C-alpha cells in the first residue's frame, strides 16, 4: 500500500523560509485593492434584503405589490424565484438564502429588492407586507434538548443514534468516536473528575461585510464578483439555485476582507443574481454589520459533559465526553468535528466522545477557524488542568506523559503516523516564557490543542512568460497573504528570483474546481500543486534544451533557473537560463506551461501549545492578559512572518472568545448585540504582543514539508486563559465568555466559600 511521502526537500532552501514583501502589499497599503464592495458596473442597482423580525414564524403570504409599484424599484424576489429542487448538498443553502414557507431565525431572508439607490431599496423593503404567524422558538442548546422544547423542524428524527429514536427532537444528528473499555479505564483510575462546561456562540468577526456584484445574462455570460473564501463553491452552488448550468456563470473572487470560515457559506450571491435576472441590470448587494451579525455565521454555542480518570502518577486511564453543540437552524457537522478532536492530543487506551448537533432558531451555522475544536478543547483542557493540580504535577509534564505518539490510535479512529505533539509540548516547556517566574499578582495557564488540516481539490496552472518570468494561476482566494507563499514555492522549485513570479487568483472559468480556502489547506495544497506544475514545466524546458544541444533529455538537469548538461554523455554546454529557453519557445514547441490537478491528501495534523500570564481585578472581575505565547508546528514555514501572523491572529480571536465575545439574546429570541460596540472583539489596547514560536517538523505529504497553520492557533486559547485565571484567582471557570460579570460572580462565591 502506498504511504504518502512526497517530501523531497527539507533543507537548503533559498526562497522558502525568507520574508519577502507580499505581492499585493502596495495595492493594500494605498487603497487600490478592490474588495467585495469596491466594484461598480454601469447601470448598477442596489439590492437589499427584507429579513424576518421573528425568530420562528410561518410565512402565510408575502405581498410585494406596493414595493414593486414604488418608483425606482426594478425587481423583487422571494423563494419562488429560485429552483424548486436542488441537489441534497445545496438544500440548506437554498432555504437559507430565502425562507421557504417558514422563517427559522430572526434575520432570515424573506424577500429582496433591487432599486436605483439605497434609499429607494430601503423604502421598498418597508412596503413589502409579510403575513407572519409567529411560532414558539428555542435559542439555547439546553432549552432545545428539553423534553417539551418547541421543534425547529417538525418530525425531525435524530440521525446516527442507535437505536433510532421514535420521537422527533431538535437533535439533528449524533456521532460517536473512541475505543477501549471505558468502565475498566475509570475503575483503574485513582482520581476521576467530571464537569459540565458551557460556551456561547462567537462570530468570525471579519471586518468586511459580505458583498457581491451580479450581472446576469441570458446569453451565457453571467458574472459574479464577490468576497468569498471559495468562488468555485459560489459558482457551483449559485448556478443550481438559479437553475442554470455551471458553465454559464463565471465567478471572480475580489480581495477578501477576512473570512475565518464565515465566508464559506453563500448568502447574497444567488439573491443578487436572481435580482439581476429579473431586472436585467447589474445588482450590487452589501450587508450591513447588523445583517452580518443577525444572519451569518456564527459558530456553535455548547453544553458539554467531560469525565476523565487518572492514576496518581499522572496517566490518563479513561476519558469520556458528551457534546451538545447548538448548530443553528439546520444542524451540520461542528459537533462531529468537536467530538473527533476532543482527545486527539492524547494517546489513550479507553476513550469515547459523543457529539450531538442541536438545531435552534439561530442563523445557519458556519465554520469558524478549526470549527468545533476550540469549544470542546476548553472543556477537556480545563479538566486536565484540574487533574494535574490534584496530583501536583506540572501541566506540561502531565500532558507529556499522556501525549499522542506515532503508532497510538487517535481518539477519532485512525492510528497516528509521525506526529509532533511531544515536540510541541517540549518546545513550550523549554520556552523562555514558561521557564520565567510568574510575575507577582499574575497566574499562568497552559493548554494544548489539535487540528486536522485538510488538502482537497486543487487545480493550478503555471505559465512561463516570453522573458522567463512566471505567472501562477491559483483557484483559492488569498485571505491572509498566501500569494507570497505561492510565489516563494514556485521560485524555489524553478530556481528563479521571487520577484520573477506573479501569482493571481484566477476566476472560475480559467481553472478546474478548487476547494474553498479553509481547513488550513491553501499553502499546503496549492503549494504541492505549484511544485508539481513547476516540475512539469522544468521537464519540458529540459527537453527543449536537450533538443537544442542535441543530447538526450535525461542528460539535462535543472539548477538555479537554468538547464545544464549533466552526466557523462552530456557534452560541454553553457547553462541555458529560463529566460533564453522562454525566448526560444516559439521555435522549440510553443508556449511553456505546467499544470497540476489533484485531490490533495496528506495535509498532516498539527498541534499547538499556548502559554498565558494574566491578572484578574478581584473587585471587578476583569482579566488582563500580560504575556501570551503560541508554540505550533508549521511543518515548514514558507513565509515565517505570515505563519506568525496566523498564530497571533488565531490566538487573539481565541482570547476574545474566552473573555468578552458572545451572542446575547433577549427573551424575545432576538439578538441584542448585533454590532462591534457590544459584540466585543479585542481591540489593540486589550492585548500584549503575542510571541510566536514556530516548530518545523516536516510533513511528508508535501514536497517541502509544509503543513497547514491557519486554524490550530484558535484551539487552545479558551482553556489557556481559563487555566491562567484559575492560577491567578483559584476560581475554575466552566463557562465562556469569562466576562467580568461572570468571573466576579464566581470570585465572590469563591470568597464566601472560603470564609
Amino acid at each position, binding site marked *: 500500500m502506498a504511504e504518502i511521502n512526497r517530501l523531497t526537500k527539507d533543507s537548503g532552501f533559498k526562497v522558502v523560509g525568507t520574508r519577502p514583501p507580499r505581492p499585493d502589499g502596495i495595492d493594500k497599503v494605498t487603497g487600490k485593492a478592490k474588495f467585495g464592495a469596491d466594484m461598480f458596473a454601469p447601470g448598477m442597482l442596489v439590492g437589499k434584503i427584507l429579513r424576518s423580525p421573528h425568530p420562528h414564524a410561518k410565512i402565510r403570504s408575502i405581498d410585494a405589490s406596493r414595493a414593486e409599484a414604488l418608483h425606482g424599484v426594478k425587481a423583487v424576489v422571494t423563494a419562488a424565484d429560485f429552483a424548486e429542487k436542488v441537489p441534497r448538498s445545496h438544500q440548506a443553502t437554498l432555504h437559507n438564502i430565502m425562507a421557504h414557507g417558514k422563517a427559522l431565525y430572526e434575520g432570515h431572508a424573506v424577500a429582496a429588492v433591487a432599486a436605483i439607490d439605497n434609499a429607494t431599496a430601503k423604502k421598498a423593503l418597508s412596503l413589502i407586507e409579510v403575513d407572519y404567524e409567529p411560532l414558539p422558538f428555542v435559542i439555547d442548546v439546553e432549552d432545545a434538548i428539553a423534553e417539551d422544547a418547541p421543534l425547529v423542524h417538525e418530525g425531525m428524527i435524530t440521525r446516527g443514534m442507535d437505536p433510532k429514536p421514535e420521537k422527533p427532537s431538535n437533535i439533528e444528528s449524533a456521532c460517536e468516536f473512541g475505543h477501549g473499555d471505558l468502565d475498566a479505564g475509570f475503575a483503574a483510575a485513582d482520581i476521576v473528575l467530571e464537569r459540565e462546561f458551557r460556551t456561547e456562540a462567537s462570530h468570525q468577526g471579519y471586518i468586511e461585510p459580505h458583498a457581491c456584484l451580479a450581472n446576469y445574462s441570458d446569453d451565457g455570460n453571467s458574472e459574479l464578483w464577490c468576497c468569498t473564501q471559495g468562488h468555485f463553491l459560489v459558482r457551483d452552488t449559485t448556478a443550481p439555485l438559479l437553475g442554470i448550468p455551471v458553465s454559464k456563470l463565471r465567478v471572480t473572487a475580489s480581495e477578501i476582507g477576512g473570512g475565518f470560515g464565515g465566508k464559506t457559506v453563500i448568502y447574497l450571491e444567488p439573491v443578487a443574481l436572481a435580482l439581476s435576472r429579473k431586472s436585467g441590470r447589474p445588482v450590487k448587494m452589501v450587508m450591513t454589520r447588523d445583517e452580518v451579525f443577525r444572519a451569518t455565521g456564527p459558530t456553535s454555542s455548547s453544553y458539554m459533559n467531560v469525565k476523565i480518570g487518572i492514576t496518581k502518577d499522572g496517566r490518563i486511564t479513561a476519558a469520556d465526553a458528551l457534546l451538545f453543540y447548538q448548530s443553528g437552524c439546520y444542524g451540520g457537522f461542528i459537533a462531529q468535528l468537536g467530538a473527533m478532536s476532543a482527545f486527539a492530543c492524547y494517546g489513550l487506551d479507553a476513550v469515547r466522545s459523543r457529539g450531538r448537533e442541536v438545531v435552534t432558531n439561530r442563523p445557519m451555522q458556519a465554520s469558524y477557524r478549526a470549527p468545533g475544536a476550540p469549544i470542546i478543547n476548553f472543556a477537556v483542557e480545563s479538566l486536565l488542568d484540574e487533574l494535574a493540580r490534584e496530583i501536583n504535577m506540572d501541566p506540561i509534564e502531565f500532558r507529556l506523559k499522556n501525549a499522542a505518539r506515532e503508532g497510538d490510535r487517535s481518539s477519532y479512529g485512525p492510528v497516528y503516523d509521525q506526529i509532533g505533539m511531544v515536540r510541541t509540548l517540549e518546545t513550550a516547556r523549554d520556552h523562555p516564557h514558561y521557564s520565567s517566574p510568574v510575575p507577582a499578582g499574575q497566574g499562568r495557564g497552559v493548554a494544548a490543542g489539535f487540528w486536522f488540516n485538510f488538502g482537497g481539490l486543487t487545480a493550478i496552472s503555471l505559465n512561463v512568460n516570453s522573458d522567463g518570468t512566471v505567472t501562477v494561476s491559483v483557484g483559492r482566494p488569498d485571505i491572509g497573504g498566501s500569494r507570497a507563499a505561492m510565489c516563494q514555492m514556485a521560485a524555489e522549485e524553478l530556481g528563479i528570483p521571487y520577484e520573477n513570479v506573479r501569482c493571481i487568483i484566477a476566476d472560475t472559468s480559467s481553472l478546474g474546481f478548487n476547494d474553498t480556502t479553509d481547513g488550513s489547506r491553501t499553502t499546503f495544497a496549492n503549494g504541492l500543486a505549484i511544485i508539481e506544475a513547476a516540475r512539469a514545466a522544468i521537464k519540458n524546458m529540459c527537453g527543449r534544451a536537450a533538443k537544442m544541444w542535441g543530447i538526450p533529455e535525461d542528460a539535462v538537469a535543472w539548477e538555479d533557473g537554468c538547464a545544464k548538461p549533466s552526466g557523462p554523455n552530456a557534452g560541454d554546454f553553457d547553462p541555458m537560463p529560463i529566460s533564453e529557453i522562454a525566448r526560444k519557445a516559439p521555435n522549440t514547441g510553443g508556449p511553456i506551461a505546467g499544470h497540476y490537478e489533484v485531490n490533495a491528501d496528506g495535509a498532516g495534523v498539527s498541534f499547538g501549545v499556548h502559554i498565558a500570564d494574566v491578572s484578574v481585578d478581584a*473587585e471587578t472581575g476583569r482579566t488582563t492578559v500580560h504575556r501570551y505565547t503560541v508554540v505550533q508546528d508549521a511543518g515548514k514555514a514558507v513565509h515565517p512572518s505570515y505563519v506568525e501572523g496566523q498564530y497571533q491572529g488565531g490566538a487573539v480571536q481565541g482570547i476574545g472568545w474566552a473573555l*468578552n465575545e458572545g451572542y446575547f439574546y433577549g427573551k424575545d429570541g432576538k439578538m441584542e448585540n448585533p454590532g462591534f460596540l*457590544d459584540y466585543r472583539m479585542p481591540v489593540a*489596547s486589550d492585548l500584549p504582543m503575542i510571541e510566536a514560536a514556530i516548530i518545523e517538523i516536516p510533513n511528508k505529504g508535501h514536497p517541502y514539508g509544509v503543513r497547514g497553520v491557519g486554524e490550530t492557533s484558535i484551539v487552545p486559547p479558551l482553556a489557556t486563559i481559563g487555566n491562567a485565571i484559575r492560577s491567578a484567582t483559584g476560581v475554575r471557570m466552566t463557562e465562556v465568555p469569562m466576562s*467580568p*460579570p461572570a468571573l*466576579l460572580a464566581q470570585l465572590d462565591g469563591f470568597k464566601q466559600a472560603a470564609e
Partner: protein
Amino acid sequence: MRYLAPDTMEAAVAMLAEADGTSRILAGGTDVLVQMTSGLVVPDLVVDIKHIAGTNEITEEDGGYRIGAAVPSAAMNEHAGLKALWPGVVEAADLIGSTQIQGRATIAGNLCNASPAADSVPALFAANATARVVGAGGTRDVPVTDIPTGVGRTSLAPTDIIQSIYLPARPSGSGDAYQRFIPRTEMDIAVVGVGVSLTLDAGGTCTAARVALGAVAETAFLLEGAEEILVGSSLDDATLERLAGAASAACKPIDDKRGTKEFRIKVAGVLARRVTKIAAERARGN
C-alpha cells in the same frame, strides 16, 4: 431631509421653530449619525451648529472655562488650562469612543443624547457644570443635572440648543476624577461610571464633595449623602467604604448585554472608592 448650517444661534433656533416633523441638532454627530444610518431616527431637518461663532471655542471666564457646544473632546484634551482645572471632566470626555470619535464627539452632545451611560455626564454633574441654553424665549443657564430626565429624554424644549457648557472656577485644594468600568480597555459603553469632585483643606480634610454615578439608573445622578459621608473626613479607608456602600445602595440598574444588576451595584461601590482616591490625590496636588 434638509441640512442647514446657520451662522447664528438665533437663526438656528428659528429654523427649529419653523420645522415640521423630526429635527436633529448636529454638532459632532457621533450619536445622530448612528441613529440616522441605523434607521432609528429619520430626521426631516438637521441643523448643523458648527458654523455658529463660539461653538468651537474654549474660553476662560471668571476663573472657569466655557466650552462651546461643538468643541470635540479631543480639543478639550489638548487644552492645558482646562485639563489642569478639571482633569476629571477632561478624562471623561476623553473616554467617549475612539480617537476618531473624540475628534468629533462633544460633551454637549453627550449630555443631550441622554444615555444613562454617557461618560462625560457624571463628571459634569460632579463638577456642578451649567449649560447655556438658547431657546425661543432667549438665553438661560441651566444646571446640567437638570437636563437628562430619562433614557434618551431631556428637559430641553424642541427649539432649545445648548450653546456652551460652563465649568466653574474652584478653590485651591480641589480635584476631580472620572472612571468607568468596561469589559475591554476601550470602545465600550460604560457599565458603571463614577465622577467625583472634591475640595480638601490644607490639613487634608474634605470640605466639599460631589459624587455622581452613571449607567446604574435611568439617568446619571448625584449621589445623595455623599457630602455628609466625605466632608469633614480625611478620606480614610473606613469613610471610603461607607461611600462605596452608599453608592451601591443608590443604584437602580438593569440587567442587560453590558452587565448584570448585581455586577453594576458592586462595581459602583468599588469605583466610587477608587475614583474618590484619585480625586483626592489630585486635590492634594493643587
